[in-house]
C-alpha cells in the first residue's frame, strides 16, 4: 500500500512541487496549508510521515509538533521539519520535541528530500 505523507506547508507553490515529486515516487499525499488543519489531518488520516514547516499561519510548527507529541495516537508518527529557519534556537527546540530530521529547504533538491523520507520510512 502506498505510504501516506502529510505536508504542512503554507506556500502553495512548494506544496505543488513537493506533491509532484512524491506522487511520482508512488506516495499518497495529504496537504495542509496551515498548522491547525495539519494537526487535524494528522489525527484523522494517520499519515506514515509528516513534513512540517515551522512558520505557519494559525498554529506554528513548534505548536503542531508539541500537540502531535502529546497525543498518544500521533506520538509515533515520524516528523521531518522542512523550513528555512536555521538558528540554533530553532534546531534545539525541535530536536527536544523529537523530530527525525531538520532540513533547510534551499539546501535540498526534491530528489534528496524523497530519499530522506524513504530512508526515514526504511523503504
Amino acid at each position: 500500500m502506498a505510504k501516506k505523507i502529510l505536508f504542512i506547508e503554507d506556500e502553495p507553490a512548494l506544496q505543488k512541487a513537493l506533491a509532484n515529486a512524491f506522487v511520482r515516487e508512488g506516495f499518497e499525499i495529504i496537504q495542509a496549508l496551515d498548522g491547525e488543519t495539519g494537526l487535524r489531518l494528522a489525527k484523522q488520516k494517520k499519515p506514515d510521515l509528516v513534513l512540517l514547516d515551522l512558520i505557519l499561519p494559525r498554529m506554528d510548527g513548534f505548536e503542531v509538533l508539541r500537540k502531535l507529541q502529546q497525543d498518544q495516537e500521533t506520538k509515533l508518527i515520524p516528523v521531518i521539519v522542512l523550513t528555512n529557519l536555521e538558528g540554533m534556537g530553532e534546531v534545539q527546540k525541535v530536536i527536544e520535541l523529537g523530530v527525525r530530521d531538520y532540513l533547510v529547504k534551499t539546501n535540498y533538491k526534491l530528489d534528496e528530500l524523497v530519499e530522506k523520507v524513504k530512508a526515514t520510512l526504511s523503504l
Partner: protein
Amino acid sequence: MFGYVKDGHVFGECKKSGLGLWECPPFLFIVMGFINICAMLGSYFLASRYSEEPMVAVLVVVSVSILILIIGNFVITGFNKIAEANLLKSEFIGIVSHQLRSPLSVFKWTTDILIKEAANKKLNPDDGTYLNILKENTERMIELVNLLLEVNRVESNRMMLARNPISLYKISEDMVNSVAWYAKAYNVEVELQPLPSPPDVIGDMDRVRMVVQNLIDNAIRYSQGKGKIDIYLKREGGFLKWEIHDNGVGIPREQQKFIFQKFFRSDNAVKYQTQGSGLGLYIAKAIIEELGGEIGFKSEIDAGSTFWFTLPIVK
C-alpha cells in the same frame, strides 16, 4: 529575535551583538565610574595640597566630576548607538535572508521539476540551456544567502560547530573530483598530493567542506586561465596542515592585511573576476579559528598564492 538570548546578562548581550568588551556600553559605564572616583580623589588631593580653602577643593572635585560625567555620557551614548546599529543590522540580515529563502526554494524545486520533465521530452535545445542557467543562478543566490546567514552567525557568536573526527583528505579528494569540470573550464589542473594514511582531524564536516571548497574555488577562479593548482596535506605536531598553491593573479602586498575582512575583495580579484561576495575567507577564518586551528597565506602579485590552514589531529 529568535530566542537566542538565553540570559539577560549585559555582557552576554554585547557578545551577542558582536561587540568586544571595550565597545560594550555597560562595561564602559563601570569603567567611567571608576575613572570618575579616581579623578575625584586625585583632584581632592591636589586641591587640598595647593589651597587651604576647603570650598576650593570641593569646587574643583565637583567640576572635575561633572566634566568627566558629561564627556563619559557622550562616549557611552555613541557606543550605545553603535551597539544598537549592529544588532539592527544583524536582525535585518537575518530577516531578509530568511525571507529570500522562501522564494528561492520555490525557484529551486520548480526548476528541479522542469529539468526532470524536460529530460523526458524533446525540447528545443535552447530551452534546456535556459533551464540550466536558471538553476545555476538560483544556486548562486542560495549560496549567497547562506553566506550572509553564516556571517551573521559569526558576528553574533551564534555559530554552532560540530566537533567530530573527519577525514580532511577525503573531503579534499571529493572536492577535487567535484570541481574537475569547473577547473577544466578555466584551463586549470587541480591535483591533490598523496599523503600515506592521512589522520582524521576534529571538525565540523559541512563547515570544513565549505572552507576547502572556498579555497579551491578561489584558486581556480583567480588562476588567470592557465596553470596548475596543488593541494598538500602534512602533519605538523598535533595538527594537520592543509595547503593550496596556485600560480594565479596574486594579492597586492598593500592589500594583504585586509584579505580576511568581510566583503573585502582585492583590486586584482575584482579585475579578474566580477563575481564574488568577499565573504568566503572571512567565514573560513572564523570557522578554522573556532575549531582551534590557524589560517594564513603567502602571495605575490602575478606569481600566485599559497593559502593554508591547520586543524587538530584526533588523538
